[in-house]
């Protein structure tokens, strides 16, 4: 059954504020059920996980580990052991940079892309500087999509890790992660995919992609903020040193020595975000009920609706990012002659929330040759009517400024 956005909208109390929320690539709103479940949990069952031998502690641990299983299933992972809870996708990437990156030797190379979010760029820049590694950067095509030919050219036997986004948070383009992985494995490099913009917007199957690490976040897919995860192939995680140290991640500690816990807890020092994980699981249940294929198709419909209308406005600069296919509901653009921050403040007066700025992708902005852009990003509770209103607002704002 196709997605009924008017019905979906009713599940999101915040939208009654009279806002049009087009900043979903930054974070998404939460369905009512999350607040209800949180109240329920705090009222009925809360304890620390993996410790107490009493009933309530066991209940909490079970709910927490259930959430891990839901997340593993959502990505079609082999086992829940491969899901490591973090604060967000950024921390998941940093975990790999720290635990895997530190094993790399002078002269080894890391390959990333000019369009990456800072979270999948700065950790590699840092580790490269610290370890004397070489950081190679894939350029983009003329319409700012992933340049596969350039990727192949820059990939070589020295490349130990390829780190790219599944979907660019600026262009919305879906990168060919399966092909990228195949090519990278051919030279023996591991592959990390930043899935912050993909999980929750399309079906994702890490086995099908074939990658080795996959980083993603709860709050970009209806879940709470402060919880994210790294999926990693078990045989690789098994041989990696822990990221942070403390409780939970150990097996045995003496005055002189320490041995590590099993996966995934080896990478989860300290009390985790228990409620965050459980509510993330609830968000996944909600998404599954609607169906990831439905969400993907609906988002594409919204993208098409918006992009076709925006293309017709001569004062809108889409910076050559005009593709309709192979893309999710993200549109970066500028109103000619209007600074993005002024435009976003004006749109706010219409109740429309869009992002203005560099989108944590300054190398991408430099590549586009603009200081910043506006960005509208859609999700399942947005409607074509909202987009029509947004188009009218753009026209009025342009008129006011010129």
């Amino acid at each position, binding site marked *: 059954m196709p997605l009924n956005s008017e019905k979906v909208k009713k599940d999101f109390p915040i939208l009654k504020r009279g806002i049009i929320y087009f900043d979903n690539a930054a974070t998404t709103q939460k369905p009512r059920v999350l607040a209800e479940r949180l109240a329920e949990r705090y009222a009925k069952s809360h304890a620390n996980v993996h410790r107490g031998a009493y009933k309530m502690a066991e209940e909490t641990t079970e709910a927490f580990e259930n959430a891990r299983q839901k997340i593993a299933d959502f990505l079609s992972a082999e086992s829940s052991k491969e899901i490591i809870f973090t604060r967000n996708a950024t921390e998941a990437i940093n975990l790999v940079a720290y635990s895997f990156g530190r094993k790399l030797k002078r002269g080894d190379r890391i390959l990333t892309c000019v369009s990456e979010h800072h979270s999948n760029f700065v950790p590699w820049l840092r580790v490269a500087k610290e370890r004397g590694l070489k950081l190679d950067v894939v350029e983009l095509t003329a319409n700012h999509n992933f340049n596969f030919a350039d990727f192949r050219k820059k990939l070589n036997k020295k490349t130990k890790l390829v780190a790219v986004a599944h979907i660019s948070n600026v262009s919305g383009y879906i990168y060919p992660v399966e092909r990228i992985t195949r090519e990278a494995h051919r030279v023996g490099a591991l592959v990390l995919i930043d899935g912050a913009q993909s999980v929750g917007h399309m079906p994702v199957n890490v086995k099908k992609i074939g990658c080795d690490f996959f980083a993603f976040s709860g709050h970009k897919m209806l879940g709470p903020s402060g919880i994210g995860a790294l999926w990693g192939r078990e045989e690789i995680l098994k041989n990696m040193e822990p990221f942070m140290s403390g409780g939970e991640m150990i097996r045995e500690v003496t005055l002189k020595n320490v041995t590590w816990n099993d996966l995934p807890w080896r990478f989860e020092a300290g009390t985790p975000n228990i409620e965050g994980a459980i509510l993330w699981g609830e968000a996944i249940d909600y998404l599954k009920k609607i169906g990831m294929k439905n969400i993907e198709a609906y988002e594409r419909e919204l993208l098409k609706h918006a992009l076709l209308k925006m293309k017709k406005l001569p004062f809108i600069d889409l910076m050559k990012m005009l593709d309709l296919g192979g893309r999710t509901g993200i549109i970066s653009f500028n109103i000619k002659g209007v*600074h993005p*921050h*002024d435009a976003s*403040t004006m749109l706010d007066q219409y109740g429309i929330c869009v992002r203005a700025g*560099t989108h944590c992708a300054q190398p991408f902005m430099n590549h586009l040759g603009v*200081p*910043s852009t506006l960005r509208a990003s859609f999700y399942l509770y947005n409607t074509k009517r909202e987009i029509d209103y947004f188009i009218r607002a753009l026209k009025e704002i342009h008129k006011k400024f010129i």
Partner: protein
Amino acid sequence: MEHARNPRNVGVIRGAKKILAKNPFCGDEAEIYLKIKNNKVIDIKYQIQGCILSRASLSIFSEYIKGKSTSAVSKIKDEDIFKMIGGTPSPSRQKCVLFGCEAIHANLDTWPKKNPSTRLMTRRSQK
């Protein structure tokens, strides 16, 4: 609005100290030229690529400080600048108003040292 459309004091002063100001929030930039003699701001010119708020506020601020002593300029507070432009902007837009002025402030602190800091906005950026 009028200042944003027709900003005052735009230009370059040859041989004067050049200050680079950047708003990391949006990537806006300004090049500010200050001429100071006997602890007095004799002339100021700048080139800016930025939004309405940043253009207008730098224009107003530059008019205001011309002729003033450096000690008077360094005493100007954020609130004074908001008053000059006619109101306090929302928190996310305050940087637009302040980043150019902050760059001037940061450099006055180290005046007349030979190499004033161009690392800007670290002092008051975390609010």
